[in-house]
């Protein structure tokens, strides 16, 4: 009934009521005009902001927003003994949290279904993109290396969670400052207190200065929602709930494909859809890189 009488109903009904009762028709009428309910064109992502150093107790942190989706990422470094198999490599542990604050779908006491999946995908992407050379995290070969705990908290889940989480992770790592440590007489790693002018401290620091982690190629991602022949970049949670097909493209700054993830959804017949999504992701990569570089240079000025 909605299909036949829908166009008439839409003129009789209030817009909000129509949106709630016939969400698919509401969106499809927008798509016909090549515009989305929030005023964006189909291929455009939402406004993105990055604030570095949001958590002072962490070694590196970032607060990112893509539209309303908000992620807080923090990296903490701890000294660990490297494994036998890789004596001169550090380690990265990624965790993604979705507290009940972020979305009505998450109930207190019951962990979200999506969170472990996003965490696994994030850790796969970060490790396989070669962004961080794990050898850079080594302190004393075979004896000590950095263990980087990356924790990402989703504060507001309004679609494209993976994109926002990856961006906050990349931003937190680019803000990371490695603390200065030295080797004590007992062979243990101790922190060199900050503001200590070399003379008082007799031990030579293991890592000479407060170092920045060298990041090679940065991965950036774009999620697209597919509906019929339309490709919607950076969908909101409302759009995600209506259009069941999602495709996430992760590209690194050299243009290589790090991940192309399409879990289920409808079957699309043309491989050109993939190429269109990759092209959108390329465009998005340039935008996000610019925003990140701006955030970093703002940080350096302060």
């Amino acid at each position: 009934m909605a299909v036949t009488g829908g166009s008439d109903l839409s003129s009789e009904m209030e817009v909000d009521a129509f949106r709630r009762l016939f969400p698919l028709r509401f969106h499809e009428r927008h798509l016909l005009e090549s515009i989305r309910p929030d005023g964006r064109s189909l291929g455009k992502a939402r406004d993105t902001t990055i604030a570095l150093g949001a958590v002072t107790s962490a070694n590196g942190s970032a607060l990112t927003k893509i539209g309303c989706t908000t992620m807080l990422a923090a990296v903490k470094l701890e000294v660990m003994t490297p494994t036998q198999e890789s004596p001169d490599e550090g380690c990265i542990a990624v965790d993604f949290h979705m507290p009940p604050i972020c979305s009505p779908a998450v109930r207190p006491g019951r962990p979200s279904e999506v969170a472990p999946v996003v965490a696994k995908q994030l850790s796969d992407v970060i490790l396989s993109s070669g962004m961080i050379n794990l050898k850079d995290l080594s302190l004393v070969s075979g004896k000590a290396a950095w263990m980087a705990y990356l924790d990402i908290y989703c504060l507001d889940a309004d679609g494209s969670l993976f994109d926002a989480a990856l961006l906050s992770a990349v931003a937190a790592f680019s803000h990371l400052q490695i603390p200065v440590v030295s080797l004590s007489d007992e062979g243990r790693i101790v922190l060199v207190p900050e503001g200590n002018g070399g003379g008082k401290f007799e031990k030579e620091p293991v890592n000479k200065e407060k170092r920045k982690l060298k990041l090679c190629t940065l991965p950036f991602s774009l999620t697209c929602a597919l509906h019929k022949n339309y490709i919607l970049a950076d969908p909101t949670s409302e759009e995600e709930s209506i259009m069941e097909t999602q495709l996430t493209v992760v590209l690194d700054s050299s243009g290589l494909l790090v991940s192309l993830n399409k879990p289920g959804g409808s079957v699309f017949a043309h491989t050109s859809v993939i190429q269109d999504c990759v092209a959108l992701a390329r465009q998005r990569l340039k935008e996000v890189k610019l925003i990140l570089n701006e955030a970093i240079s703002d940080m350096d000025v302060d």
Partner: protein
Amino acid sequence: MEEKRGDGRNANQLRPLACTRGILNRSHGSASWIQGETKVLAAVYGPKAGTKKNENPEKACIEVIWKPKTGQTGKPERECEMILKKTLQSICLLTVHPNTTTSIIIQVVQDDGALLPCAINAACAALVDAGIPLKHLAVAICCCLSESGRVLLDPNKLEEQSMKGFVYLVFPNSVLSALPEGSSQLGGPPVQHGIITSVTHGRMSVDDYLLCVERGRAATEKLSVFLRRSLQTQIPGDNSKAGS
């Protein structure tokens, strides 16, 4: 002309396949799927009344439980559950049994590479065995990309770890339509050219990815024929499930 792989196969050769249906007595449908040394057992229970919370009661709900060979269910298993669930959702006719839940339990018996595709194939066979209404079957394959840019199909664990990247792809199988020739063409290009699921690991160029898709698609023809044959052979003698 081409160098052989570690186990003597050439690049496009799959490992020996085996599929047995109805191996579990209590489940509504079950299947084991073997690709070389990788073996997965799938059982289907349902449709049971009611859906889980946060699911649409106007459609059937699919629940996937992934049991690893040893140890507890962790993040990798959760990811597999999610991918499998979304994949099966897209091949099942969810509107036939609204407000029901169908559980698919996957037990990994042996993992020697290409585990997720193997599990998808097993789940698909088990769903057919349970008589759950499906739009079409799905066939899954793993393509591996070597440093030199060669595509190897259906890798074992050793190859999977040593390669620069791999891609899991799920395609719809070629439909044998009962409709007269040409009528199925109305909806645009044939459905079997599409991709249901794609998961990649490791860095590769976009062209390499598309090459994997092409080679994977060609190989699923064989898989598709095998799946259809193994589903057909058991039908004549399969009276036990007919009434239930």
